[in-house]
Structure formats: C-alpha cells, structure tokens
C-alpha cells in the first residue's frame, strides 16, 4: 500500500476535481466540503509518503506495472517528498484563504473553480513526481492550463493578462517540448534515470547542448526567470486576489523544481556544455534576476505588482543558492524555495485583504492601514522581515545558508547579488512601512462588515509558519542536507 502513495497523492485531487462538476449538478452544497476533504487528506498522505521514503529509500513507481525505461515511472525521492509536503500544506492554506475570498467576489460558479484548483494541484503533484521528461511536459501543461483559466476567472482586465500568460506559457511549453525531442533524438530515451546513463557518451553532441538550452528557456518562461518574466507581473496584478497566492506560491516554484530535477538528476552538477559550466551559467542568470527583480520592485507603484517583482527576485536567489555547487548552498536554496513559497502566499494574502477591505491599490493607499487591526499589520511585519531576511524568520536563514555556501565556493558574485537584492528588498519595504506608520488624515471607514475568520486565520497561520521555519531552520537544513542532496557533490 505504502508504495502506491505517490499515485494516491495524484489521484486524490484528480478524481475529486473530475467528480465535482457531476456531484455539483445535484448537490452543490457538498462540493465545498469534498474539495476541502481532498486537500486536507493530501497532507497526512504526503507526510506518510515522506516518512516511508525516509525509511525505505526512494519509491520508483512504475505505472501500469511496466518497468522503466519502457514504461512511465514516477520517482518519489527525498527532495520530491519534501516539496510535496510543502505543496499540500500550502494548497490547503491557499484554498482556505482563496475560497472564503472568492465567495465574496464570484458568487456562483464556485464548483468549477474548485475543479480548476484541484486540477492545478494534481498537475503540480505530477510535476513533482515525474521521472520522465515527457511526463513532466504533460503535467506542466495541465498545471499551466488551470493557471490560465484561474487568472481569467473573474473577467475584466485579468482576461487580457490571462491571454498574454497563455501565449507566453504555451510558447515556453513548446520550447521545452522541442528540447525534449532533441534529447530523445540523440539518446532514444525519455526516462530521467536512463538519460543519466546515456547522456555522458553524447555530451559533445550539438543536439544535446541545444536541447538543454531549449528546455531551460521553456522552463525559464514558466518559472519567470527575469528576462523571460513578461507574463508574470500583469497576471499577478490582475488575477483575482484569491487566486494570486496559488500562482505565486506554487506554480513558479514547481517549474523551478522541474529545472532542479533536470539540472542535477539528468545532466549532473558538473556538466560542461561547450566549455560553459551549466551551473555557473544558471547561477549568473540567477544573480541578474535577483538584483534586477528587486530593483524593478522598488520602482513599482501598485502593491501587488511590487510584490510580484519581489517574487521574481526570489526566484533568482533560489537559483543562486542551488548553483553555487556545494551541499550547503543547495540545501540553502531548497530551504529558501520552501520559505519563499510560504512568504509569497502570505504577501498576496495580505495584498488581497488590504485591497478588498481597505481599498489599498497603490503604495500611497497604504496610509489606510495606519492603526488597523494588529493581526493585519503584524503579519505584514513578519512577512516583510522574512522577505528582507531579518532573524528569526525563515527568509534570513535561507539567505544565510546560501551565503555560507557561496563563501565555501568562493563565489563572490553570488554573495554580492544576494546582499544587493536584500538591500533593495529592504528599500521597497521601507517605502511600504513609511506609508503604513505615517499618521494620516481621517480615513473613510472600510465598506464591508467584519472580515471572515478564515481570511484572518490563514494570514496569521502563514506568519506563524514563517517564524517556525526560522526557529527550527537548523534541523530542517541538516535534514535537507541528509535527504535531498543529489549525487555528484
């Protein structure tokens, strides 16, 4: 039974998603409960999966019983299981927030929204466990299609952003598929494990270099690495407040995880293509993204857009961490990825509540928050501390281990980039707090009644999670070093 846990983790949201519209025809009141139940069940199942993997080693799940490399295989190793636990917890928290938020915005049509969200979670689960390059492509597209639909779900300006997201996202997926077909043409296999054995003999082939480049470009668009981020700011800004946390905390991070999988488990950490070490190239691009993203965030007026650029900068920092080329840096990068997923969810929870209740759209509007309930301002402070990297929050320790790894590797560009990004992040949060704490003229009263407790609970819960991640960061990072490090370090 335990061997089937990865498949169960995927089938749980998938079957719920498919059956919800049917159940919704007659018993639409049940749908909400069922969606909650499926997402809630994912947490114990993913934890059971992690425990099983830790005790018995990686699960290699051959679908249909057909042995890889001919059959399709899923791999649940340490890294995948850890990411899966984070994914299922965040999915539930984002769902609690988004569901109570969007009920206020959308009204009807909720059943289809549940379906889309559950399908998104199923697609992301598939991406996490995929042990096959083409399988990764399929789940990339399943998740992305739900993403396009979710961005456009509330209509209005978001439709145009969703359309742009769709065009660029599909272009990225096509590039990825092109890269996969190059690798397939050279090696004759799609299985990641099999590729690691066959690639070294053909490393000098131009097709491998071009294929890897295309795959990186494709996933780069999906994870919104800085020069390829065109779709993200608009999509995050205009998407419904309840949907943005899903996109910000999970979709880009899982695409990034897909690239980690390819870079370390397929290519290997020491790969050199045409005299260019892949790790160094990715690290340099990460440095650029970290600094440029934070600098662009500093120049934004709209709150949600500013946070979106902050997230872009963090994608860069994660890439810097994983590509410094030693265990400390890699574990720091993975830890920062987990932290960033929580922080991004929290940031957009905050933006959603501020926007919905206090009509905060631009930086100037933040004066509205002066003297507002302490849980709102308090969680903003915690999230901001983590975004900047002030102890005892998780963000600090993530950056700490990344910088330790960079010092170990004597990679001073990486240290400089992380520090510069930190300073710039501090810059835009100073802009935020300057407005929040400025005593302002009498403010109009918030137009709606009391905020529902799920909104408050999820925001406070995320803040607590950030602190907890910071306080227990040492055991977590040691655990990550023990369980998730790829071969070759």
């Amino acid at each position, binding site marked *: 039974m335990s061997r089937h846990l990865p498949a169960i983790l995927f089938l749980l949201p998938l079957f719920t998603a498919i059956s919800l519209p049917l159940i919704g025809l007659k018993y639409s009141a049940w749908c909400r409960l069922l969606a909650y139940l499926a997402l809630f069940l994912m947490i114990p199942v993913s934890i059971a999966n992690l425990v099983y993997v830790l005790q018995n080693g990686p699960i290699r799940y051959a679908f249909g019983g057909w042995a890889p490399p001919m059959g399709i295989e899923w791999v649940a190793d340490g890294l995948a299981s850890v990411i899966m636990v984070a994914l299922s917890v965040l999915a539930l928290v984002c769902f609690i927030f988004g569901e109570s938020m969007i009920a206020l915005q959308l009204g009807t049509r909720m059943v289809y929204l549940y379906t889309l969200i559950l399908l998104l979670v199923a697609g992301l689960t598939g991406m996490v466990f995929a042990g096959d390059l*083409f399988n990764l*492509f*399929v789940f990339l*597209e399943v998740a992305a*299609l739900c993403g*396009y*639909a979710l961005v*456009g779900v509330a*209509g*209005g*300006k978001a*439709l*145009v952003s*969703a*359309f742009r997201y*769709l*065009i660029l996202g*599909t*272009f990225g*997926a*096509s590039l990825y*598929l*092109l890269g996969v*077909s190059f690798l*397939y*043409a050279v090696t004759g296999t*799609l299985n990641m494990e099999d590729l690691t054995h066959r690639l070294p003999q053909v490393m000098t082939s131009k097709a491998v270099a071009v294929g890897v480049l295309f795959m990186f470009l494709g996933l780069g668009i999906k994870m919104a690495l800085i020069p390829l981020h065109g779709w993200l700011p608009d999509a995050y800004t205009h998407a419904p407040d309840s949907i943005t946390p899903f996109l910000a905390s999970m979709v880009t991070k899982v695409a990034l995880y897909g690239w980690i999988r390819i870079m370390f488990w397929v290519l290997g950490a020491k790969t050199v293509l045409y005299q260019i070490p892949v790790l160094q190239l990715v690290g340099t691009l990460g440095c650029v993204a970290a600094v440029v993203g934070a600098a662009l965030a500093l120049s934004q007026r709209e709150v949600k857009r500013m946070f979106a650029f902050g997230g872009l900068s963090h994608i860069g920092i994660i890439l810097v961490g994983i590509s410094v080329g030693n265990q400390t840096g890699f574990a720091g990068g993975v830890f920062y990825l987990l932290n960033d997923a929580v922080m991004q969810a929290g940031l957009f929870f905050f933006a959603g509540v501020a926007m919905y209740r206090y009509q905060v759209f631009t930086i100037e509007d933040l004066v509205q928050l002066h003297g507002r309930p302490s849980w709102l301002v308090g969680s903003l402070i915690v999230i901001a501390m983590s975004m900047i990297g002030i102890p005892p929050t998780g963000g600090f320790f993530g950056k700490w281990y990344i910088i330790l790894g960079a010092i170990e590797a004597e990679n001073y560009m990486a240290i400089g980039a992380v520090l510069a990004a930190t300073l710039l992040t501090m810059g835009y949060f100073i802009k935020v707090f300057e407005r929040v704490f400025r005593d302002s003229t009498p403010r109009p009263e918030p137009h709606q009644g009391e905020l529902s407790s799920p909104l408050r609970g999820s925001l406070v819960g995320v803040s607590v999670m950030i602190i907890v991640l910071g306080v227990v960061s040492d055991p977590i990072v040691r655990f990550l070093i023990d369980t998730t490090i790829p071969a070759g370090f």
Partner: protein
Amino acid sequence: MFEIIEGWLQRPNYITFVLLFLWGIYIMVTRYNLVKKLIGMYLVQTSVIFFLVTTSAKQGATVPILLSTTDVIQPETYTNPLPHVLTLTAIVVGVATLGVSLALADAIYKKYGSLDEEEILKRLE
C-alpha cells in the same frame, strides 16, 4: 559552403520545421489581432510536433507490428512508434490549450468589443 547547403538539403524535414517555427513566432510577434496571435502560437506548437514525428521517419519502414512470428526481426523495416505516441499526447495538449485560448479570446471580445490588441489596451487605460 556548398557542402553545408547540400547537407541541409538532405534534411528537408528540418528545413520545414525551422520555417514553420519561425513563421509562427513572426506571426505571434507582429500581429495585433488576438486570433492571429493564436494562429501563430498553434503554428509553433505544430512545428514542434512535426519535428518530433519526423525524427522517427525511416525510408522503406512500416508500422511496428510483427507480420510473422517465425521470421527474423529486422529493426530497419520498422519505424519507431514512440514519437508518434508522444505526438498524440502533445496534440491533445495543444487542442486543450486552443480551447482555453479561444474561450479567453471570446470573453475578451464580449468585454471589449474588439480583438485588436492596441484597441483593447487603449480601453484598458
């Protein structure tokens, strides 16, 4: 130089792929009409699928089904079925994408009364 061009002409399928791919990107970048952008996007997708399928092409080969159980199996007489199977999945993904994109284009048209990107952006202001 001459050899390079000769080498290229040996692979008309790759030339077709490159032309289709670039043509699709060109349409996506230069056209303002949303449906034309979609056509460009679909062309890019289709060109990749075309490339994938041509990698399995072999002269004089046939479908990978054994016609007799007693003859010696000759690999050169069978094509590789895997790219075709992958292509099928990629086509399904492409169709789903097209469905979502047309629904979005339709919703945009109903909302803004136009499919011209510049006009929509003007109305967004």
